[in-house]
C-alpha cells in the first residue's frame, strides 16, 4: 500500500472476501445518461475552449504585429480548415455557455430533481444547436 487513502478503497464482496472497491466513474460499464454525458461534454468543451483561447491569443498578437501577420491569420481563418476550427470553437463555446448557466442554477440549489435535470440537459443541447446554427447563418449570409 503506497498511499494511506487506499485503506478506504478496501471492501468485502457478497462472499465476504476482501476486494478493492471499484473507482468511480466506471465508464466502460455505465450506460451513457444525460447526467454523465452533459457533464463530460462540459469538460471536453472546456478543454477545447482552452485551445480556442490559444487561437484568440494568436489572432490578437497577429493584429498587434501589423498588417502582414494579420492578413495571414485572417486568410487562414476564412479558409475551409479555419472555418471548421471556428465552427468547433463556436459550438464548444455555446455548449459551455449554456451548460455553465445550468451549473450556476445547481449552485443556487435549483433543478436537482431528475426530471428537471433531464429537461435542462435537453434544453442545453437544443440551445447549443440553435445558437451555433444561428451564429453561422448570421455570419455567413446576413451580416
Amino acid at each position: 500500500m503506497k498511499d494511506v487513502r487506499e485503506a478506504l478503497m478496501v471492501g468485502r464482496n457478497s462472499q465476504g472476501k476482501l476486494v478493492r472497491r471499484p473507482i468511480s466513474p466506471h465508464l466502460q460499464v455505465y450506460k451513457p445518461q444525460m447526467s454523465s454525458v452533459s457533464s463530460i461534454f462540459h469538460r471536453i468543451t472546456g478543454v477545447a475552449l482552452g485551445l480556442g483561447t490559444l487561437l484568440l491569443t494568436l489572432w490578437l498578437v497577429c493584429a498587434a504585429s501589423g498588417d502582414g501577420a494579420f492578413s495571414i491569420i485572417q486568410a487562414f481563418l476564412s479558409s475551409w480548415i479555419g472555418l471548421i476550427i471556428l465552427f468547433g470553437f463556436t459550438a464548444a463555446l455555446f455548449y459551455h455557455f449554456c451548460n455553465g448557466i445550468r451549473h450556476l442554477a445547481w449552485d443556487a440549489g435549483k433543478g436537482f430533481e431528475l426530471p428537471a435535470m433531464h429537461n435542462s440537459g435537453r434544453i442545453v443541447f437544443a440551445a447549443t444547436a440553435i445558437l451555433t446554427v444561428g451564429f453561422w447563418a448570421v455570419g455567413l449570409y446576413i451580416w
Partner: protein
Amino acid sequence: MSNLNADPSIHIRRSELGRARGLGAAKSGLHHWWAQRVTAIALLPLSLYFVLSVLMLKGASHAGMVSFMAEPWNAVLYLCLIAALFYHLSLGLQTVIEDYVHKDSTRLATMLAVKGLIVFCALAAAVSVLKLAL
C-alpha cells in the same frame, strides 16, 4: 438556539472522509470554487460580447481591427474578457489535471507548464489589445 433535537449532521457540511480524518478545512478550498463561479458569471455577458465582436470583425482588414480596438469600450471589454477568460481557464484546467494526472511529479510539472503558458498567453493577448488601442 434552534431545534436541539434536529440531526446535527445536516448543519455541518462535511464529507464522511473529512469527518473521519478530523483535520478541519484547508482554508483554500472555497476560493477555487468561488473564483470559478465569479469568473463564470463575468463571462456570461463577456462571451456574448466576444461572439458579437467576432461577427463584426469577420474578414476585417488590419485598419478595421485597429479602429475597432481604438474604441476605448472595445479595448476595455476585451481586457475584461482576457482577465476573466484566462483566470477561468486556469481554474478549470487545474481541476482537469488534478483529476487525471496521478503521479505527483508529473502532476506538478504539468500544472506549472499549463499555468505558465496561461500567464504567458494572457499577457500576450492583453499587451496586443493595448498596443492596438493606444
